[in-house]
């Protein structure tokens, strides 16, 4: 068949080869390249965010470089390696080059500690998890999975990445301005963040605000693209309830981003005006209201946490059926629970403010809505278990990470219930219990999903397979050290250990908990080391991995129909037509244990999912 369409596809393909380096790799408008760009940017930022985390952990275990009277075995080893055994001084390794007043010969002052956790969280949330889940996988997967040739607005898409990159540069620039980077926490509560003299940070905080406003513009462009593409550009037969759950999750994420970010943008604009133009939106002295910042921030912030987990849930829902060789259990319940989260997510923000002085009656209603929003998460968990039941489970690396995701997310979801209960939250608010919760949902949840997704889609993205052995080392190392790093945070949180403190030894009631801090830091170092096999695997496989086939996992969804790696325009001369839902594994209708969405079964009418 030589149709105009056919010719066009060839032209598109040829055009791809003619584009120069700049148009192919830098200012590409191809959704797959833009996705990869987001991935590389975010992995780079992850190294920075991770290094900050390790510095903080070091400080917490050995405050001010002090190993205490009875250092344990691990501490003694580290002391030998990096410290001064005679004085018991254990400065942070590899940081001597950082000049004063940021660091004092490897010793961290409290100002820098505050900047470190502020920037750590900001970077991880806005420049690692969001760019990978939404920017990278959103971009890469949406057109491929719905059977489109590209996003609706490829140029806007390119702009989205580059505007995001500018935001990243602005954020990192904050480290180099006088006064240092923002140090008011990623939540930047006013008035602390609104008056430079309260923190001593001047341009650092301004840049923080500006960077996030710019990033908001980037996300807006992304959302416009995702929503339009998913609504308007699905392949023939790709009805809403045949969409892979990953696409569902990204769709809902895009809607949440679209509606939540402008609220943050408005709040940031007011904060900047307070800092630079003499207004007092958040300053009581001028008639302002500090709690207004918290309301606006969390009105954005709670949808934001779902923005960071929904794509992870989508990814897990994709990987589990593939390797259990079984349809996802309760597809519709999975989709509707995400829709439920999207609605409920707007009425729970007050659960971050139970102790803020907000009206206690309001607190009660936020508690009830928060209890209710845990239900969709429970439904999803049970459905994942249902998917495993009766399966034929293959323990590939992506599967291990997806299973890890389920196991860890459950812990994070359950710990949320403690905090949802207002009286219990009185005690654990602002303690390490919160930090544990955050990390179980965001590291155990989002980051595990991200790793699973990278191992799963790497063959399609880069045309090569990743190494299995290194993958196993990475998974088990990460799982073990991750739990060693974060599980004890529940325990010290229950012991009353406040978050965001720089030296726990200043409090007598925390002395008995200090050994946990040492334990967690040593685990964190292990967690850091456990990422090395991943880096090696990623870089090595990028260039030298064995060539991937078109559909190495025997998966059903449309991205595996495209050749590997997909060319410009994704699919051949004609787009695939979809005949069924995405999870028809082990269907009795066919001999193989999978049935791709686009395969026409001639002897039977295509049946709905």
């Amino acid at each position, binding site marked *: 068949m030589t149709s105009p369409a056919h010719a066009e596809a060839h032209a598109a393909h040829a055009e791809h080869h003619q584009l120069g380096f700049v148009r192919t790799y830098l200012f590409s408008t191809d959704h797959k390249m833009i996705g990869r760009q987001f991935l590389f940017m975010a992995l780079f930022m992850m190294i920075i965010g991770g290094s900050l985390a390790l510095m903080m952990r070091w400080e917490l275990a050995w405050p001010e470089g002090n190993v205490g009277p009875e250092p344990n075995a691990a501490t003694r080893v580290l002391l030998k390696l990096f410290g001064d055994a005679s004085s018991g001084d254990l400065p942070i390794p590899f940081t001597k080059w950082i000049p004063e007043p940021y660091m004092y010969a490897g010793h961290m002052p*409290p100002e820098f*500690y*505050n900047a470190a956790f502020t920037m750590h969280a900001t970077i991880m949330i806005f420049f690692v998890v969001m760019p990978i889940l939404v920017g990278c996988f959103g971009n890469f997967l949406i057109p491929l999975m719905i059977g489109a040739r590209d996003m609706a607005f490829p140029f806007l898409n390119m702009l989205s990445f580059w505007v995001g990159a500018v935001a990243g540069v602005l954020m990192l620039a904050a480290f180099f301005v006088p006064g240092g980077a923002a140090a*008011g926490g990623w939540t930047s509560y006013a*008035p*602390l963040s609104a008056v430079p003299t*309260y*923190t001593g940070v001047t341009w650092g905080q301004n840049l923080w605000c500006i960077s996030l406003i710019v990033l908001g513009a980037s996300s807006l462009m992304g959302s416009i693209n995702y929503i339009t593409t998913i609504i308007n550009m699905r392949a023939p037969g790709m009805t809403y309830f045949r969409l892979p759950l990953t696409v569902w999750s990204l769709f809902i994420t895009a809607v949440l981003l679209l509606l939540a970010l402008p609220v943050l943008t408005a709040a940031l604009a007011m904060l900047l005006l307070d800092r630079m133009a003499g207004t007092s939106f958040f300053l009581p*002295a001028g008639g*302002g209201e*500090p709690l207004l910042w918290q309301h606006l921030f969390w009105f954005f912030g709670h949808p934001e946490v779902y923005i960071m987990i929904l794509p992870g849930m989508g990814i897990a829902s994709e990987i589990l059926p593939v390797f259990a060789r*079984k*349809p*996802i*259990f309760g*597809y519709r*319940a999975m989709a509707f629970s995400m829709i439920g989260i999207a609605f409920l997510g707007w009425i729970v923000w007050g659960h971050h403010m139970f*102790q*803020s*002085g907000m009206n206690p009656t309001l607190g009660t209603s936020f508690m*009830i809505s928060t*209890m*209710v929003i845990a*239900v969709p998460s429970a439904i999803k968990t*049970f*459905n994942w*278990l249902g998917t*495993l*039941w*009766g*399966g*034929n*489970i293959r323990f590939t690396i992506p599967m291990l990470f997806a*299973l890890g995701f*389920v*196991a860890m997310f*459950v*812990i994070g979801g*359950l710990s949320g*219930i*403690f905090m949802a209960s*207002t*009286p*219990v939250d*009185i*005690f654990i608010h*602002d*303690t390490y219990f919160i930090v544990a919760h955050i990390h179980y949902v965001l590291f155990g949840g989002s980051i595990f999903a991200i790793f699973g997704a990278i191992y799963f889609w790497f063959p399609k993205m880069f045309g090569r397979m990743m190494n299995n052995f290194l993958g196993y080392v990475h998974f088990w190392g990460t799982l073990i050290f991750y739990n060693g790093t974060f599980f004890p945070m529940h*325990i010290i949180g*229950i012991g009353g250990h*406040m978050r*965001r403190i720089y*030296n726990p030894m*200043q409090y007598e*009631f925390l002395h*008995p908990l200090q050994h946990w801090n040492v334990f967690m830091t040593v685990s964190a170092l292990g967690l850091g080391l456990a990422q090395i096999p991943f880096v090696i695997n990623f870089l090595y496989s990028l260039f030298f991995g064995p060539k991937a086939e078109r559909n190495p996992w025997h998966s059903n969804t449309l991205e595996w129909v495209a050749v590997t790696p997909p060319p410009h325009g994704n699919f051949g001369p004609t787009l695939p037509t979809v005949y069924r839902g995405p999870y028809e*594994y*082990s269907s*009795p209708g066919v001999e193989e*244990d999978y049935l791709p969405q686009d395969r026409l079964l001639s002897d039977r009418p295509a049946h709905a999912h």
Partner: protein
Amino acid sequence: MLSWWLPQNVSTYGGDVDRLFYLIFYITGVSWVLVQVSMLVFLFLYRHREGRRATYTHGNTTLEIMWTIVPALILIMLGFMSKATWDTIRHTHPPSTTVVQITAKQFNWEVLYPGPDGKFDTDDDKMIENDLHVPVNQVVRVRLSSKDVIHSFFVPQFRLKQDAVPGRVIEVWFEATLPGVYELPCAELCGFGHSGMLGHVTVQTAEDYQAWNKEQWPS
């Protein structure tokens, strides 16, 4: 001395908080074990075997309705149980003769006592930094505010935490049940000196408290 669990509780409503904590702990603990164990069992039972074919099923409506409704009921029940305790702590303001004003500032707690006349804004008011003395087994009311940024008044052993917000006065109460000296850290990030912003609450027997008052306000 606490080692690794909830700090000792020495306030009247702390017991209610702890009971809720344990209730949630047991419920979530059981759920966690159930989920984790069934996952491991499934992973073992249904691991890949040559010739095995997975069960072809898309779900089970009855089951799914069950596991929607049961968690929902449990969670809402927890919500209402929590409400009761929350109301005791935050909505009731039991009468009290001991009232202090605590004003947080970077990086100290300014504790203002009304003095023997029991009234603020009189000559015998007295401000002592980072040192709160209260009688045991009596309701104490604390009027919290802040001079600069948000701080948070936290006494782990009382199960009491409340942000001190500039521009507002927020009143909290507690009744300590055991004499002793308890730490009073600040729990909300308030600047570079946040870590180490620390006061002490001294809970005293009636006699000791009398004596301390005599010492502070001789006359």
